[in-house]
């Protein structure tokens, strides 16, 4: 086994050099010259050399409202995410599920809504249902809201473009 270690080292080095070069070429040319290499692998290496490239003009976050006695109340999600705002927004986008089937992605939001329903109840806020929206992260700018998921009647709207 010990004699195999240098072989593994060389194989890993070759893999790293090839994938990093390929990712650099992809970064510049935006062409996948080797389509047999899974996008997941290329994306990982490309991602390591692409900080702050995916900026969009959209400034959206996940908003939540709970239904109680016939009216909707804003639920502040920030206390559930003890991190800086950028990380909060990124966590709420649940990107680790975003590239899976849309049904799986929505199912994860459904699970998240159920969790908030329980956590809010533990805090004394008994809601009948919870609804998620993609909307401006600034609470006072709520003109553009897109319903994502309504827990009670399972009315689910797929995420919109870059919003979530």
């Amino acid at each position, binding site marked *: 086994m010990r004699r195999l270690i240098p072989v593994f*080292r060389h194989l890993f080095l070759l893999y*790293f050099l090839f994938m*990093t070069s390929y990712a650099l070429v992809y970064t510049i040319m935006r062409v996948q010259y080797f389509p047999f290499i899974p996008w997941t692998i290329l994306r*990982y290496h490309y991602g390591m050399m*692409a*900080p702050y490239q995916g900026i969009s003009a959209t400034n959206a976050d996940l908003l939540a409202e709970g239904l109680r006695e016939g009216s909707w109340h804003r639920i502040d999600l920030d206390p559930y995410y003890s991190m*800086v705002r950028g990380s*909060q927004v990124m966590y709420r986008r649940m990107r*680790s599920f975003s590239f899976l089937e849309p049904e799986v992605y929505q199912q994860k939001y459904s699970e998240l809504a159920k969790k908030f329903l329980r956590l809010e109840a533990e805090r004394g806020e008994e809601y009948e249902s919870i609804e998620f929206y993609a909307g401006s992260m600034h609470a006072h700018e709520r003109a553009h809201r897109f319903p994502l998921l309504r827990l009670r009647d399972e009315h689910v709207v797929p995420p919109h473009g870059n919003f979530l």
Partner: protein
Amino acid sequence: MSYHHMGTSYDRLFLFFSLLFVFAGSGKTFSVDMKRKHGSFLAWEETSVLIQRIIALQITATYFGVGIQKLGLPDWEGGSMLLLSFQDMWATPFAFWVASQHLPMWIYDGMVMIVKAFEISHPFGLWSKRWRLWFMAGGVLFHAGVSLFLAAIWWFYAMIAAYITFFEPEEVCERMRTWFRKIPAAASSSPA
């Protein structure tokens, strides 16, 4: 260890570096292992330089890639995207304040030009023995500047920490021995 949750560039880098550290022989100095084997945390054993080189290459690719990409992306031709980033989810209160000052666009254009020039030239400077310290200082200033505007300060720490991989291991050892005289001059094979 929730790097996989966000899938951002730095999460990917941290996850990749964590994998590298598993095989880097990280326990071969400043470790409980060394204390148990050689009686001193400062004892050290030789390990392959491969992982160090891979980290340095990755840092090179990260700076160069992100810089060269900005040259081609239409959004980064001018400073408008930078102005938007001063109002997005990563923006610090200072960035919001700057954005609210309605500064002329040429200031943002200039900042983007500086960022592009820095990101493309930086890895070459780090590989140059002559210029390394200057570029390291530039890197600290650059990341400190970025951290003023973007609340992603852990990114700053990790990149600065990785600069050490551009030095030769012997050079680092010698420098460390001037600070900690108890570090043995040679690799330990018997109790230190």
